């Protein structure tokens, strides 16, 4: 290998299927997850949670619990009076409820005791007097019923947030249309169900400094929340994110148990651990919002969209969490796949007395994507167009700006569609909307859908001008390389990405590198593992740090070898003259030369996303340095007798930009297909609205998720359309490939048996009901029929780029009240 290891040269590490740097430890029981941490004199914490969905706390009596031998400390809401929350606009959580509880599972009191059994017994001895309040259990109730209010803030009664945006004049778009279609959909909520239950250990040491080890995807945001709630200087707090045993968005909020173990440690002077039970993990939730959606689209005869009006109603649960961002996300990405020249979005998030919803894989976008892709399928049928061809014909152009001011870079969706259409033999399977000339027998069908996802949110969660990701690199004279970054490996391989990129630039083996991540004392800030930001952002930061280090090595070696700097190459743990490869030094010798010349070798790199062209209020959600694209074809077998849907195979093509490691990309695609499959077929967070809004089944047995027996065959295509903003052209893969799966399956069910299930999940009961209705001459559709009537605020109007807009909102017209 005699290559120059620059971004443009042949690659020795990037694009190769190396194992992950942490893989062997994970297969040998050596990886330490949060609950594996045991410290001397450690106490165990149990948290008493409300069994009331909505109630005032009239009194808490801890006397009996405190008297139990082995109980060291008990705290209640009064001990932690400062509120917090992930978003600056919704600081609405207390680590322990103060005046009232808002859902079954809301934390009320916490015990630290010498072991878990004592803590558990003590927890059950705490007496809480509640005064029950009426509950709000659905979006409709939240819109209609103002009192009692779940929170004393928000846009109205129990409405947390209302958003209304219009890009161009949508009515003009509808006037130009040959066909206008309206549909209503419901996407039930579901949860992340990471295999690892959340756990945290807090330790307030003799220097009165605090360390928290926690299974969190966002140590930097937890760090900020702890400083605020505990009133400690942030510089005296160290947050270490342990390897996450699965995240999927479920470990992205600062959590009450994290605050509680720290507070208990501050009180007792001993380390304190809390590990949630599986039932508690269901109550932590922050999962997929249930969303009711209405979409109205005008199209020309060839399927070209002339205007779209999308409305979404989110059931937010009891707290804000990421909900304001989730609300915007249900409206943001409709425009990045197919050309939408005029677009109106109205979104509403409701507070209800249920565990809070937040970000789950695809954050706020799988619901509208499902609605949009099924809606387009219905449009294609009305226009008698092939649904794959119709989509293919109207794609957003690469390097363009959408009506809502999202800047598209590389765009490989066309190739993605071509691949899954060819691979699935679509032309010879799809019914062509002609039930009498089916190509597959009744009961078998295929469906297609496409999608896109961001590669990192353009803006951080709190406003600042600092980089979103930082990497520090240290080279020592023995040849060691240490890469440090605040990012968190949640299984996706982010630690490995750092090693691969640094190894590529420095011409060494990725397993030569020590990776130190997710420790706020040791690593530069990275905002965390969310929004599919890590490969792009930490990758770019690592690339910058490594290129700076490389430059120092090159200068020192060029001087030593007396050859021009541009002749120096790094590969195979050597630094050498590319014209005369045997002339060179080992990598370790190169560091000695550089250290002799420049002093200790350390470099940094950082990454800030480009500025978004959108400047209107609300433009903060949706912009990203790049967008990934996916297309999928699902093949299903529907039993008309039982209504059971078996997904036999999914062909999926994903525009990854460039695979840093194709094997890990494949794993993310397959895992995304799996999770999308679970959502469309079985997973649901379901509550008994008439029985105190209690969760129907907070257990892994009854919350159905796919086992090996339900997982389908997956045929994957990786499309490499490099994006100039990605490291080596790389885009995201952790979330995007989930998105086309639910609508592709829904469309395939229609192709198979001719009924539309406009509500996720597609359970056998719903299929049977639709089939029965159809056999009785009715619609053959299962799904919601109406949306709540809402007084929307006057939309914020923005001229589109095509209309000569500059990304700012137009002055508001006076509204008569």
């Amino acid at each position, binding site marked *: 290998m005699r290559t120059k290891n620059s971004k443009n040269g042949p690659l020795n590490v990037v694009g190769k299927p190396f194992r992950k740097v942490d893989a062997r430890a994970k297969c040998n029981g050596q990886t330490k997850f949060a609950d594996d941490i045991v410290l001397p004199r450690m106490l165990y914490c149990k948290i008493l949670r409300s069994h009331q969905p909505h109630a005032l706390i009239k009194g808490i009596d801890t006397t009996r619990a405190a008297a139990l031998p082995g109980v060291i400390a008990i705290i209640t809401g009064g001990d932690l009076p400062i509120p917090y929350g992930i978003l600056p606009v919704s600081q609405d959580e207390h680590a322990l409820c103060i005046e009232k509880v808002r859902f079954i599972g809301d934390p009320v009191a916490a015990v630290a005791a010498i072991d878990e059994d004592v803590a558990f017994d003590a927890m059950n001895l705490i007496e809480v007097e509640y005064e029950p309040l009426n509950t709000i259990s659905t979006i409709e109730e939240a819109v209609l019923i103002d009192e009692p209010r779940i929170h004393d803030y928000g846009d109205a009664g129990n409405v947390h947030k209302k958003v209304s945006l219009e890009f161009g004049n949508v009515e003009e778009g509808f006037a130009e249309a040959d066909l206008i279609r309206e549909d209503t959909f419901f996407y039930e909520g579901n949860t992340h169900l990471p295999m690892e239950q959340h756990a945290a250990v807090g330790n307030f040491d003799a220097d009165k400094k605090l360390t928290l080890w926690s299974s969190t995807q966002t140590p930097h945001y937890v760090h900020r929340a702890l400083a605020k709630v505990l009133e400690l200087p942030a510089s005296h707090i160290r947050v270490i994110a342990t390897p996450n045993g699965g995240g999927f968005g479920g470990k992205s909020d600062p959590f009450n148990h994290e605050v509680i173990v720290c507070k208990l440690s501050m009180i007792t002077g001993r380390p304190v651990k809390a590990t949630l039970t599986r039932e508690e993990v269901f109550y932590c939730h922050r999962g997929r919002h249930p969303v009711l959606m209405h979409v109205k689209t005008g199209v020309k005869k060839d399927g070209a969209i002339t205007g779209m009006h999308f409305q979404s109603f989110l059931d937010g649960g009891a707290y804000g969490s990421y909900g304001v961002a989730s609300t915007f996300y249900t409206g943001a990405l409709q425009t990045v796949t197919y050309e939408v020249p005029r677009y109106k979005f109205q979104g509403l998030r409701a507070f209800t007395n249920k565990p809070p919803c937040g970000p789950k894989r695809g954050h706020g976008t799988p619901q509208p994507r499902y609605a949009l892709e099924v809606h387009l399928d219905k449009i294609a049928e009305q226009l008698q167009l092939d649904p794959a061809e119709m989509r293919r014909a109207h794609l957003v152009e690469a390097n363009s700006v959408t009506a809502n001011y999202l800047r598209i870079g590389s765009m490989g969706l066309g190739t993605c569609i071509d691949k899954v259409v060819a691979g699935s033999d679509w032309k010879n399977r799809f019914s062509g909307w002609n039930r009498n000339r089916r190509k597959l027998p009744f009961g078998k069908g295929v469906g297609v859908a496409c999608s896109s996802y961001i590669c990192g949110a353009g803006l951080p969660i709190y406003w600042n001008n600092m980089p979103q990701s930082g990497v520090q690199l240290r080279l020592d004279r023995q040849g060691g390389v240490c890469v440090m970054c605040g990012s968190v490996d949640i299984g996706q391989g982010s630690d490995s990405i750092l090693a691969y990129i640094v190894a590529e630039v420095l011409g060494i083996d990725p397993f030569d590198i020590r990776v130190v991540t997710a420790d706020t004392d040791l690593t530069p800030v990275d905002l965390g593992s969310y929004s599919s930001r890590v490969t792009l952002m930490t990758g770019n930061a690592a690339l910058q740090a490594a290129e700076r280090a490389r430059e120092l090595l090159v200068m020192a070696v060029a001087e030593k070898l007396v050859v021009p700097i541009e002749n120096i190459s790094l590969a195979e743990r050597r630094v050498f003259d590319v014209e005369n490869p045997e002339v060179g030094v080992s990598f370790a010798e190169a560091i000695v030369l550089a250290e002799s010349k420049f002093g200790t070798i350390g470099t940094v790199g950082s990454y800030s996303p480009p500025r978004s062209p959108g400047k209107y209020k609300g433009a903060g959600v949706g912009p990203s340095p790049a967008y990934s694209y996916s297309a999928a074809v699902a093949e299903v077998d529907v039993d008309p007798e039982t209504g059971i849907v078996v997904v036999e195979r999914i062909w999926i093509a994903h525009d990854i930009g460039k695979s840093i490691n194709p094997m890990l990309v494949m794993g993310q695609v397959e895992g995304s297909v799996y999770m999308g499959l679970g959502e469309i077929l079985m997973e649901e967070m379901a509550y008994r609205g008439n029985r105190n809004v209690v969760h129907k089944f907070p257990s892994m047995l009854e919350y159905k998720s796919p086992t090996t027996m339900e*997982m389908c065959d997956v045929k994957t295509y990786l499309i490499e359309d490099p994006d100039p903003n990605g490291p080596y052209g790389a885009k995201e893969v952790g979330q995007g490939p989930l998105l086309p799966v639910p609508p592709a399956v829904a469309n395939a069910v229609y192709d198979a048996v001719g009924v539309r299930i406009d509500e996720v999940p597609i359970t056998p009961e719903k299929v049977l009901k639709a089939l029965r209705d159809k056999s009785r001459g009715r619609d053959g559709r299962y799904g919601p029929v109406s949306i709540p009537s809402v007084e929307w605020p006057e939309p914020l109007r923005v001229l589109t780029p095509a209309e000569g807009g500059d990304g700012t909102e137009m002055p508001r017209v006076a509204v008569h009240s």
Partner: protein
Amino acid sequence: MSEVQKQKVHISFTLNGEAAEIAFAPHKTLLEVLREDLALTGTKHGCELGECGTCAILVDGRAILSCLMLGLDAEGREVKTIEGMAQGPELHPLQETFADLGAAQCGYCSPGFLLVAEELLKKKPNPTRVEIQEALSGNLCRCTGYIKIYEAVEMAAARMRGEEMQLPRESVYGLE
């Protein structure tokens, strides 16, 4: 909890090939004894109710859920955990293929899958894909969609039979 229940019990058993003795509170599950009293934290838990397969270990060569077995019942038995799978510094072929092929993403469910797969390959050195799916159907994984796990089991099985096996190109790079 009454004082009687807190009286520790004592058992002797074989743990990862070595004689072991331990005293613990009698109500403890084998999972708790392993993790808390023996500091073998490689065995994980996902529900502690026998629903997810995460805590699977081998007892007398058979895969069992350690959260559903009392520690007391391990008396005289042969217990194998993830910590006992490698031979010295050499990983078991299953551990190697799970690591090398990306079958462990977050790695939390991996110990359970590995031990259940080990039992499978003892019984069936050349299992079909369907046999692998059936054997692993009691273990949940939320990361991988199981596919890389099947491939890792198949490749380890081939190696253990002394055969060379190449993964199809499409498993690593996708279809052309």
